[in-house]
């Protein structure tokens, strides 16, 4: 079928172009990797300790699951590591834990938590030492014996415990993979951006006289438009499938129910393809279309929650966002990936996206026919 020949040539030409290969395949994965590493799920912060490498104090610190405790040989290394952000806090403990314990913390959440933890552990340690002193005085034993009496009593003393539970939806579910955060946003942003960019080929085709040449063959304008439209959709789909497969294999991103994720990807590819076709028929020069395309793609992505999550949008912005196909697709992917949604759960999103695609394709075909035969 001739439409497939045209679409296939579109794809072939995209694969020929090294720069577009970078933008289509390499950059999205790189961004997902970088964003995932920077903002992705919890990695355990560390506290560094200089001065002791065993003993009760260190065990008490290590009992907290929120931090990893590493011993560091020299004070200078400790300070440097805190400065670089490798450690949330650094602790300088004097020999035999007497006198002043010095604590350096980073000015961030993890540093503050480390400060609270160290203060609590030291308060408990002070209580233990005071009890030991008390036993030594009352029983007349030496300090070491007194301390072992204290520790064995403490081991069998019933203590008050705290149980914590949380309420409200977590902004980002904790069981989402480290890189899953924002992967679908990047997918949408890039699929749309690439398609808008590839529609410049439509204008190039006209500038080169290729479009006229195609119209001069026994091929109907409807077939040519179908082919060019399919070409745009194919470009979007190839990239979409690549990003989904790549991120799930390389970074363990979970995209959720495959049929539902596939349907959303296809629907969004159709929207992007329609928009690309319209763009390619509206502008005269590749520069105009390229500039406008990139602006539109980034603008819609920002409005549609691909840069800042929709959950953080205020009331009005949230309503505005719903005018973008990106917001609907983002909602759909969130439903599928985070809340285990399946096809029926994303039918509203699929419906809206199909509507967008239909309108954009109709407009694009109408404009393209006009510029092809004047």
């Amino acid at each position, binding site marked *: 079928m*001739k439409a497939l*020949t*045209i679409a296939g*040539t579109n794809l*072939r*030409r995209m694969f*020929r*172009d090294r720069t577009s290969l970078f933008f289509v395949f390499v950059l999205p994965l790189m961004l997902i990797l970088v964003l995932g590493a920077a903002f992705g799920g919890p990695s355990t912060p560390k506290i560094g300790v200089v001065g002791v490498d065993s003993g009760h104090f260190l065990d008490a610190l290590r009992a907290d699951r929120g931090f990893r405790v590493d011993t560091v040989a020299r004070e200078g290394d400790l300070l440097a590591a805190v400065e670089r952000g490798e450690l949330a806090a650094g602790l300088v403990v004097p020999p035999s834990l007497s006198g002043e314990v010095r604590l350096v913390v980073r000015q961030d959440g993890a540093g503050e938590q480390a400060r609270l933890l160290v203060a609590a552990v030291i308060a408990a340690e002070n209580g233990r030492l005071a009890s030991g002193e008390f036993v030594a005085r009352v029983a007349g034993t030496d300090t070491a014996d007194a301390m072992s009496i204290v520790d064995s009593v403490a081991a069998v003393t019933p203590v008050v415990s705290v149980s914590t539970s949380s309420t409200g939806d977590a902004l980002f579910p904790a069981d989402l993979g480290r890189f899953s955060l924002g992967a679908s946003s990047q997918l949408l942003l890039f699929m749309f951006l690439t398609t808008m960019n590839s529609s410049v080929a439509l204008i190039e085709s006209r500038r*080169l*006289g*290729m479009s*006229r*040449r*195609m*119209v*001069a*063959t*026994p*091929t*109907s*304008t409807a077939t040519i438009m179908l082919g060019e439209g399919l070409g745009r959709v194919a470009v979007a789909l190839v990239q979409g499938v690549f990003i989904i497969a790549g991120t799930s294999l390389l970074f363990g991103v979970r995209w959720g129910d495959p049929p539902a994720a596939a349907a959303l990807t296809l629907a969004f590819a159709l929207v992007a393809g329609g928009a690309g076709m319209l763009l390619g028929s509206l502008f005269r020069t590749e520069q105009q279309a390229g500039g406008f395309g990139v602006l539109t793609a980034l603008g819609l992505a920002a409005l549609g929650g691909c840069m800042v999550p929709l959950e953080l949008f205020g009331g009005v912005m949230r309503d505005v966002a719903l005018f973008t196909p990106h917001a609907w697709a983002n909602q759909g992917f969130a439903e599928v990936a985070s809340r285990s949604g399946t096809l029926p759960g994303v039918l509203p999103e699929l419906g809206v996206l199909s509507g967008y695609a239909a309108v954009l394709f109709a407009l694009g075909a109408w404009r393209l026919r006009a510029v*092809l*035969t*004047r």
Partner: protein
Amino acid sequence: MTTDTPEVLSCKGLRKRFDDVTAVDDVSFTIAAGETYGLLGPNGAGKTTIISMVAGILRPDAGDVLVEGVPVSTRTTEPKGRIGYVPQELAVYPDLTGRENLTFFARLQGLSRVAAARRVAHVLGVVGLTDRADDRAEHYSGGMRRRLHIGMGLLHEPILLVLDEPTAGVDPQSRNAIMDNIRELAHSGLAILYTTHYMEEAERLCDRVGVIDAGRLVAEGTRRELVALLGERDRISLSVDGDLGHAEDVARLVPAVLGVAARGRGLELLVHDARQCLPAVLSALAEEDVRVRAVEVDEPNLETVFLHLTGRALRG
């Protein structure tokens, strides 16, 4: 020209306006099988607009294009398979190889995969690109790209080949190769519609020529018929030094001179009788300090015909 061969192309009353420009104004002509027909006219005369309507990529405001009696329009597909269209601008995908470019259009012409491969190999031979078939077109020389561009119109063995200024921007050697190519195609029985603003190409290649100016077909016929329009007239070519515009003005004022056109480094004059008026021309120029380096008296050519019909030069 009267002939028994059936018309391959027939254009009747073609008109096309763009906003306030009448690009084509009531143009009619026919081309018979095996005939090469040239549309000769300066830039902006309307040649490309006519060709575009013939190829079915531009809708005429009025008039018909028939190929073997079948109407061609932007909405028809079937008769387009009989036309091989080679547009004025170089239309090849630079990032595809010669073979890929040809195969793409062979498929759009409706050839099967196998038939396309066979025709592509054949056409690569015809345009002399077999050795470079699998290089990207962006690595071709200008002449090679032109040949590929022309080859793309030959894939489906059309009966009418439509070429819009196929030698534009090509070095003289490639130009000769292209013209030889076209002549061979004509000998094989193809009807050819050829536009150019080079008088020499029209004279060398075309059985009949339509002279086109400002959207109108102002004359039509064989070279001999067109030159006969001039009656008993001569053409004088002068090579001059200095300000050509000034020389042109001076020559125009000589009473026996019917038309003047600046051309290259000299002037073309249309006169009734060269022997009689040459002295007057030369003395007028000498009086105005225009140095004449060479004089040539010749039969009129198509350039002279154009000058006679429009009062203007075909090109500067």
